[in-house]
């Protein structure tokens, strides 16, 4: 069963304890200066944003069909059965295709490093495997970030919206976006106002399908194209060969 996070923006009080817990979990520096940063970066995987007294959290969406995992030439990213999309720094060669491919712009880069890594929220895979919550969900004092089974969280989100329709927009961001994600967001202001890509723009199609349509043809294309090229070669050289053979025959015809 796949785990997920439900973020309910209406319950968030912007205490930023999730930011601190995340930094601690991932051994990143966290002080007032980092807390004041409102954008994600290689040293800040999650951020709580404020706009007109309303809050919104941003983190890796952990897509059900992650673009980063499909584009990585060395397979440094993969989606675990438990839900987290994790990164193997050893494999990474630093092509940064994951960064350009991600519809949510989650992978960040250590631009100043001499042996740079791609950095993003990896949904505390060690904790999840051990049956614990993610660090951010565990510390959240209001329950705005909740950890659980994805199916249960979807049901809970639907219930909350149904029971209190005036407090929420009637949609769960991440339910179907790019084929569904393991982070679900409900709020009373459109997430797009905080920099999330619009649902209409990214669509419900899993990202890997866009390149998959081409890639899946290649195993068929190679033998067919090789045969075509070989055929062209054979036909266009046949005449020369025939001519050469005839000349040869003429020259020492009696000897053969």
């Amino acid at each position, binding site marked *: 069963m796949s785990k997920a996070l439900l973020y309910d923006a209406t319950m968030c009080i912007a205490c930023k304890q999730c930011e601190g817990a995340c930094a601690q979990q991932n051994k990143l520096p966290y002080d007032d200066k980092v807390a004041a940063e409102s954008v*994600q*970066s*290689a040293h800040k995987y999650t951020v709580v944003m404020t706009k007109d007294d309303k809050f919104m959290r941003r983190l890796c969406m952990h897509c059900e069909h992650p*673009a980063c995992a*499909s*584009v*990585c*030439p*060395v*397979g*440094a990213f993969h989606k675990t059965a438990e839900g987290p999309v994790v990164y193997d720094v050893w*494999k*990474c*060669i*630093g*092509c*940064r*295709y994951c*960064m*350009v*491919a991600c*519809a949510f*712009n989650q992978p*960040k*880069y250590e*631009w*100043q*490093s*001499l*042996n*740079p890594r791609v950095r993003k929220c990896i949904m505390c895979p060690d904790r999840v495997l051990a049956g614990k919550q993610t660090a951010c969900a565990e510390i959240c004092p209001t329950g705005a970030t909740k950890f659980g089974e994805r199916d249960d969280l979807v049901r809970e989100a639907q219930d909350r919206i149904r029971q209190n329709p005036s407090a929420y927009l009637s949609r769960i961001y991440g339910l179907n976006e790019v084929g569904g994600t393991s982070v679900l967001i409900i709020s009373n202001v459109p997430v797009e106002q905080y920099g999330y*890509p619009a649902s209409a*723009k*990214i*669509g419900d199609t899993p*990202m*890997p399908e*866009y*390149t*998959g*349509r*081409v*890639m899946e043809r*290649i195993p068929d*294309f*190679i033998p067919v*194209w*090789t045969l075509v*090229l*070989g055929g*062209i*070669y054979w036909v*266009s*050289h046949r*005449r*020369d060969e025939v001519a050469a053979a005839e000349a040869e025959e003429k020259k020492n015809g009696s000897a053969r």
Partner: protein
Amino acid sequence: MKFKLTFWKVVFIVIMVLGLYSTVVRFFYGLGAVSNMSDQFPWGLWIGFDLLCGVMLAAGGFCIVGAVYLFNVERLHSVVRPAVLTAFLGYVLFIVGLLFDLGRPWYIWHQLIYMNPHSVMFEVGICVMSYTTVLFFEFLPNVFEKFNLITPIKWIKKIYPVLIILGILLSTLHQSSLGSLYLIMPSKLHPFWYTPALPFLFFGSAIAVGLAMTIFESTQSAKAFGRHLELPVLVELGGALLVALWVNALLRFEDYFHRGLLGQIIKPSYESYFLWLELALAFVIPITMLSFKKVRLSPRGLYLASIFTVLGFITNRLNVSLTGFETYVGHHYVPKWTEFSVTLMIVALGFALFGLAVKYLPIFPEEKYPVQQRLRPATVAGPVTAEPVLDHAGN
């Protein structure tokens, strides 16, 4: 004369010094220090020009090899060697460029042991690696011939059909796949350049530019090395280029028509200015020029038309890789001077290596003595081997 030579040498040295400085910055201070790339713009000039354009500019190799060996068009035989040389140098320099751009180039060999067959980048990587090897073997006869090694030339000649077919297969795959790289970014890349037809467009433009580059480098080396210009070959290439440009133009039109963008591309906007520039350079100017028989038959006309074509498609690839993302990202990306200087260094290296190869290897073997001794008579001796060892030895 002498001043001019010195001038270009000085330019070369300046480019090299600046390039080496940037190389030091790149490897001792990191990508952040050397470039204006950022989390918003993770791919910059090095991907847009060195990689996307570099591979396109080296496409002459497979175009000419395909024409001469696959379709047996003997008339173009004299341009095979320079085209293969350009392609080989192009791919080697592509790999050099990649070592600058990759964040962890020392792990590039991981590509061979950790394979992700779903990744377009993986396919490009494997194809480029294999094709560079193929080009190496296609290039080798030049070296063997120089040292009169007949036996290895015979071996290569034996496997030549395999090399040719493999080379064209690999080129088809990775030239088109460079376009497929961008298929996964429908929400980011501007609709002028995002299209499901990207792999076809990239393959088509590679053929047009391959032909144009062959005209360009033939004319250029005739000028620089005082060689006799083979006009009939250029005229033939010019005709093929015109056809290739029309096919590309129709593909582009069909794509915009099909996606209902024709109304949008004529409206002024930041993107449409760049699109107009690209379309003018790549299609309008060269197609108009080449439509006149007078231009098609003149070396100068062909030379200019090929330059416009090359510039046009370079603009196209920079639009796909850089311009097309600016509105999405919300700010402009202007490469840092150190990024330019690395690119310039790689291009200058390409020119220098081409010059050296022409000087020391029988790249133009059929010509016994330089017809015009224009630039540097002392350095341009005739081909080193007195007689070609085998006719069309290998290539």
